[in-house]
């Protein structure tokens, strides 16, 4: 039992914590996924912005280059120099200007694009030609263009403008070398690592970069294993760190130059990772707190429940003494209080039931307890049995009270045993007698037979009772039993404050009268015709016809002798002779009646009944009855 409640607590714990983990976990997971997605998007967007800034930065540098070239293209002194057609002077003036604007290369190109003077190749123009750059410039409104191109395998950002003298008669080219300083400059503007690379047949070569040397090689190797990408954001792992990388071709058709902007993913995701750590901490703390709270609540519930269960076990075992102890001000405390009150009620009721069972027959006790406390009855066919001790009142006057009680209890015990054994109930004890009912509150089909058998059983038990009474030193008892079957009112009667289950009606009075008549005829049991006719298998002898108060028709009295199949020979002979004797008597054939009764008297020793009849015949002979006499006794004792 205890183990089960422990597991109930465990179940509550598991359920609540499981739910909490599930919900919190789902929240954490969705927040994590949303955050990661958002962080990742943020990183990508930031890189896009950076890429835009990078392109803007490149354009700005182009414009700077163009403007610096323009300075020279309209420089009058330089026009004069060019007009001299002196190559050395032209080259020198170019160098001068290059130094002035801090460019890495300057050139003068013929209209077709061949170099006339080139600061990278001092001797005779170097044979360099930039046709694509010139072609692009020719498409421009002011003849200006810029591009990133390789010069001697080194990438340069170049700008070209027309040279005016004042007609556009040549091209001025100016360029910055794209080196690490250039990359660092772009890094300052964009906040990302900048690497300029060239792709040749899927092999990547780094020209300049803000990355350390080892990472440059890793980047080139990493990109070389990737399929060619036009422009995209990709993750590139460099020495264990993931870098979000934006790979964009530079504005140089054919040269396969790319700018790679990179940002460490770990660095970019750092705020998100920090948030995730905080979330996990909050989640764990929440789980722990909930665990504690739920355990506390579960304890508060299961401990009193376990205490109540123990209390219930005690009650089951009949212990109504120890109350359950729950010191709580909540519903469980109220439940415990109710439980204790219930226990007290049960205890009182149990005592009451016990007492009732002793005071009344168990069936009556059940009947009383089974229904609401209300008055009322119903018509029932019952057989009522009255029994008492003959001459008990006069005996009480001279008997020792203590012994009297002992005698009484001996008799009543035998009485209730006989009644109980045959399914009747002792409705009440009345001094030296008792009133028993067969057929209420519990009915049987053979209630009259049960009643007669109970009466015979009591009759037959009397010698044993008398033996015990004799052992007490008292005189033996004589008893009278009256049995009558009739329709009566059965139910709870009295007042609401004090009621009992009983049967009332004329039939009850008849039974009582029969009991009283046993004394006159000297027989132990008298039953009515109604009862006799309902008890097959029992041998009877008719005793008399009597008038009862309130009844016109005479009532026939019968004495049960015993079961027909187990009747002693003497009784069998008596039963055979008796009807004839009675017939002679009622036919006023006195001589023959006397003869028959005397014969019966000899069979039955002693025979108060036949003595009574012989004496009665003597009286009737002395004072003959009227012609209408039907053999009944009374109204005047005849």
């Amino acid at each position, binding site marked *: 039992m205890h183990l089960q409640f422990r597991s109930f607590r465990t179940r509550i714990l598991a359920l609540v914590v499981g739910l909490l983990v599930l919900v919190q976990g789902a929240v954490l997971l969705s927040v994590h996924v949303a955050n990661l997605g958002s962080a990742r998007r943020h990183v990508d967007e930031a890189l896009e912005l950076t890429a835009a800034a990078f392109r803007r930065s490149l354009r700005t540098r182009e414009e700077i280059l163009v403007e610096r070239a323009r300075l020279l293209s*309209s420089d*009058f002194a330089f026009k*004069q120099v060019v*007009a001299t057609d002196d190559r050395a002077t032209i080259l020198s003036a170019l160098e001068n200007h290059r130094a002035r604007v801090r460019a890495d290369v300057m050139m003068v190109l013929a209209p077709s694009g061949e170099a006339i003077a080139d600061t990278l190749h001092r001797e005779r123009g170097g044979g360099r030609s930039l046709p694509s750059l010139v072609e692009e410039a020719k498409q421009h409104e*002011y*003849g200006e263009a810029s591009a990133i191109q390789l010069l001697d395998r080194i990438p340069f950002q170049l700008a070209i403008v027309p040279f005016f*003298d004042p007609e556009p008669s040549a091209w001025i080219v100016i360029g910055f070398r794209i080196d690490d300083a250039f990359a660092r400059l772009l890094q300052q503007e964009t906040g990302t690592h900048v690497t300029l690379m060239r792709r040749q047949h899927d092999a990547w070569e780094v020209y300049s970069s803000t990355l350390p040397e080892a990472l440059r090689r890793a980047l080139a190797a990493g990109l070389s294993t990737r399929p060619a990408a036009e422009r995209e954001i990709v993750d590139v792992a460099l020495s264990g760190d993931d870098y979000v990388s934006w790979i964009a071709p530079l504005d140089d058709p054919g040269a396969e130059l790319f700018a790679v902007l990179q940002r460490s993913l770990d660095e970019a995701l750092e705020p998100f990772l920090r948030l995730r750590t905080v979330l996990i901490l909050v989640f764990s703390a929440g789980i722990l707190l909930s665990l504690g709270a739920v355990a506390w609540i579960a304890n508060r519930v299961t401990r009193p429940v376990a205490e109540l269960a123990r209390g219930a076990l005690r009650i089951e075992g009949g212990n109504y003494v120890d109350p359950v102890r729950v010191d709580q001000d909540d519903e469980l405390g109220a439940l415990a209080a109710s439980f204790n009150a219930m226990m007290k009620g049960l205890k009182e009721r149990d005592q009451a039931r016990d007492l009732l069972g002793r005071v009344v027959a168990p069936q009556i006790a059940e009947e009383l307890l089974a229904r609401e406390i209300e008055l009322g009855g119903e018509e029932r066919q019952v057989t009522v049995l009255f029994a008492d001790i003959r001459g008990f009142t006069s005996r009480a006057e001279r008997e020792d009270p203590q012994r009297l009680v002992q005698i009484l209890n001996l008799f009543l015990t035998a009485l209730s045993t006989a009644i109980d054994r045959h399914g009747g109930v002792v409705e009440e004890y009345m001094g030296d007698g008792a009133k028993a009912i067969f057929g209420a509150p519990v009915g049987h089909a053979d209630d009259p037979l049960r009643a007669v058998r109970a009466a015979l059983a009591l009759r037959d038990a009397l010698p044993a009772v008398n033996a015990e009474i004799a052992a007490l030193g008292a005189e033996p008892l004589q008893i009278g039993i009256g049995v009558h079957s009739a329709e009566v009112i059965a139910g709870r009667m009295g007042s609401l404050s004090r009621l009992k289950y009983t049967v009332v009606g004329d039939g009850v009075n008849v039974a009582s009268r029969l009991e009283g008549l046993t004394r006159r005829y000297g027989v132990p049991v008298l039953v009515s015709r109604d009862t006799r006719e309902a008890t097959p298998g029992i041998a009877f002898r008719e005793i008399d016809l009597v008038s009862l108060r309130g009844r016109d028709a005479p009532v026939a009295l019968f004495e049960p002798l015993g079961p027909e199949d187990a009747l002693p020979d003497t009784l069998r002979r008596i039963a055979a002779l008796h009807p004839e004797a009675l017939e002679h008597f009622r036919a006023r054939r006195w001589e023959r009646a006397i003869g028959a009764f005397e014969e019966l008297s000899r069979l039955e020793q002693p025979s108060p009944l036949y003595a009574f009849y012989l004496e009665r015949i003597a009286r009737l002979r002395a004072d003959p009855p009227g012609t209408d006499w039907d053999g009944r006794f009374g109204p005047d004792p005849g």
Partner: protein
Amino acid sequence: MHRSLRDSTIRRGARRCVPTILTLLVGATVASGVTLDAQVLDGEGEPVKDAVVYAAPLDGRPPLGEGPPAVVIDQVDKEFVPYVTAVPVGTRIRFPNRDQIRHHVYSFSKAKSFEIPLYKGVPPQPIRFDAAGEVALGCNIHDWMRAYVFVSETPYFAVTDENGRAALGLPDGGYRVEVWHPELDGRPEDTAREVHVGGGEPAALHLSIEKRRVWRPRRAPSLADPSYR
């Protein structure tokens, strides 16, 4: 004809130079009996303005007349006016500065290389253009200022108006007619056409040229004329 010539030569703010040109052209047509009505179109069929159409007699170099009168190229509102001037060899051109600021006129062209350093008003000496060919003029301190002088070997030439039309007064005979334009793609010789005029019948000639792109420096923004780029 006068009207069309006038139209062709009137440039924005350049009205006062018109009589000079008229004088020049009228002088050139006195002796001629036939007017060659030429029209120059570009590759897209659009009329070409400021093209010089000149005709050289097929029978040799014609004798030049008396020295041509002095020609003037003004500087007005930081622009040369007119943009294209055709003159016979030996013409003296004055470059009066009508602006309130100084200009520095120069040319590095092979036909005439010269320089008039920063000056105001009318320079004391005109510049004599004594070699045939094109001369590009610029101003040292205003990159966008540009004008052309076409120095012609023959006295028979005219500059097209905005309809691409030019009228040449030619004596009867055969001529080799060529076109020059600042944006001409190729050499003038490639545009050469032979025509024969005579019998007092007016002749018409359609000439087609290919133009190339010739860039010009941006003009410094001017509040006075924001339309100029």
